[in-house]
């Protein structure tokens, strides 16, 4: 293999009482890539991440980080990554500067080095103006930025991000994505969990889809989207007797199943460029339509698609 693995996860399992929350999950994360763990709430993403970052003991299975076992060499493994948790894991009661200072010191930096790194990170994450204010007055985005800054104190080459943009407004989310892309450019390996398909699509090189604790599917976002199918075109045929002619007309134009619910039709689209010819054909056949919409596949569709017959 040409690229080395940053992380190897094999047969990882965690039970809480009777419930198996993470069920025999195995995957590798290559150095320098963004690896996404995608799944709905309660799928086991965070539990998996917590085991990978030594916060939780696995019931079975093994995780190695740059070749070091997270159980046997926990301390060494811990020194090799930065972690940004789902809930802001910074101190609410103290200022941004104090947070960075304290975490720098806890990471083993000398007082002078800690001061220098704090100044650097405050600048890098545009937090200088609010550096000495209590975090209570911080916006969600600022808090996440500080959180990420704290994770980067030791310049780890491996960074874990647990739902980095959950609860952020679209603008702040885009800022976070830019920051993550910059980290990748600097050569970091990133493991992130997300419930947003769009986020996984935007950032991840490789994805593992997790549902009910099981690894359902792995691949690149492009591969997965192909599996799910693309967007769907939905519209209502205005006159009842024109529904069947419309279905017949479109069957020749698209691949995949056309779903019909009363006078509503849902047509799979491989590409958005298929839209004009379809509309043109309908117009030519003098079929009147209304309530037209194009729906991108949602995470729900992914799970519907991937877990059919399994549950």
């Amino acid at each position: 293999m040409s690229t080395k693995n940053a992380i190897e996860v094999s047969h990882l399992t965690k039970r809480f009482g009777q419930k198996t929350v993470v069920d025999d999950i195995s995957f590798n994360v290559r150095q320098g890539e963004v690896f996404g763990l995608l799944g709905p709430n309660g799928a086991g993403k965070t539990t998996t991440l917590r085991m990978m970052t030594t916060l939780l003991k696995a019931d079975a299975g093994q995780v190695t980080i740059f070749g070091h076992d997270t159980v046997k060499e926990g301390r060494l493994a811990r020194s090799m990554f930065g972690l940004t948790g789902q809930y802001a894991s910074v101190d609410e009661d103290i200022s941004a500067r104090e947070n960075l200072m304290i975490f720098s010191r806890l990471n083993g930096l000398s007082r002078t080095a800690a001061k220098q790194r704090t100044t650097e990170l405050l600048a890098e994450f545009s937090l200088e103006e609010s550096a000495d204010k209590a975090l209570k007055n911080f916006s969600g985005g600022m808090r996440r930025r500080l959180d990420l800054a704290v994770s980067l104190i030791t310049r780890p080459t491996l960074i874990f991000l647990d739902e980095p943009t959950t609860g952020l407004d679209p603008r702040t989310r885009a800022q976070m994505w830019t920051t993550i892309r910059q980290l990748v450019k600097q050569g970091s390996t990133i493991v992130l969990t997300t419930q947003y398909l769009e986020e996984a699509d935007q950032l991840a090189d490789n994805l593992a889809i997790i549902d009910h604790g099981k690894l359902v599917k792995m691949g690149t976002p492009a591969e997965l989207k192909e599996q799910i199918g693309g967007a769907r075109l939905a519209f209502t045929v205005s006159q009842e007797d024109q529904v069947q002619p419309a279905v017949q007309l479109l069957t020749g134009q698209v691949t995949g199943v056309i779903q019909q619910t009363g006078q509503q039709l849902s047509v799979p689209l491989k590409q958005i460029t298929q839209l004009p010819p379809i509309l043109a054909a309908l117009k030519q056949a003098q079929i009147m339509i209304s309530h037209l919409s194009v729906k991108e596949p949602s995470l729900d569709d992914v799970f519907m698609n991937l877990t059919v017959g399994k549950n």
Partner: protein
Amino acid sequence: MDVRMHKGNVVMNTATMAYRNLLKTIHNPDSFMDVVIQPVMFMLMFGYLFGGAIAGGVRAYLPTIVPGILIQTMLSAGTGSGAQIREDLDSGVFDRFKSLPMAHIAPLAGQLFADSLRLLLATITSLTTGYLMGWRPAVGFKWVVVIGLLAIFTGWALSWIFALLGLLAKSAASVQSLSLMTMLVLSFMSNAFVPLHSLTKPLRFIANLNPVTYVITAIRQILATGGWTHEALLVVVFDVIIVAIFAPLAVWAYDRN
């Protein structure tokens, strides 16, 4: 790769964590209110309510009640540490502490060292209130400092027990209520507020089993005789044993969390 390996400097980590907790309390002076208001309130209430009935006057009651309320305040300050640890654990910031390559006792020890400031403040408030109400220990200031330190050390040792409670409990609220009950039972079922000979036999038996009774007796003896006593030494030894047992247990519970 710029990864700084860390030698697990326990003392340094603990000092940093203590600094963190100090910063937290400085940013939130409200957190001192309980240890400041409670001893003043209890000293005034108990002194003026029961002084006449129990000792024939407030002034005569003070040598009994000042050590009693001092230790009661130490107990409740200790319960505060337990609740604070639970709150911290639930806040997510402890996840980061745990993911750092540092000594696992540091977050706990840091908290408890920073909390000794609360204990110190509580001690000063208790003794000053007593003084303002007319308490004049004959043995001089030096021995007042000694009993102050003895009380603080005892409070600090006890806070390891409450820390363990905090780590094992489900929520900060449950720590608070459990600790409050423990505190009330321990302080009232002792010689803190009433002379032992006034108690019924079964009650006296319980009070004699209560470690709080021994701490208060030791303090009263020092204040009465102006010398270090055998009982005081026993209290110190007992405190050391508590820390030796409960500090490792707390770290174990912390790792388990």
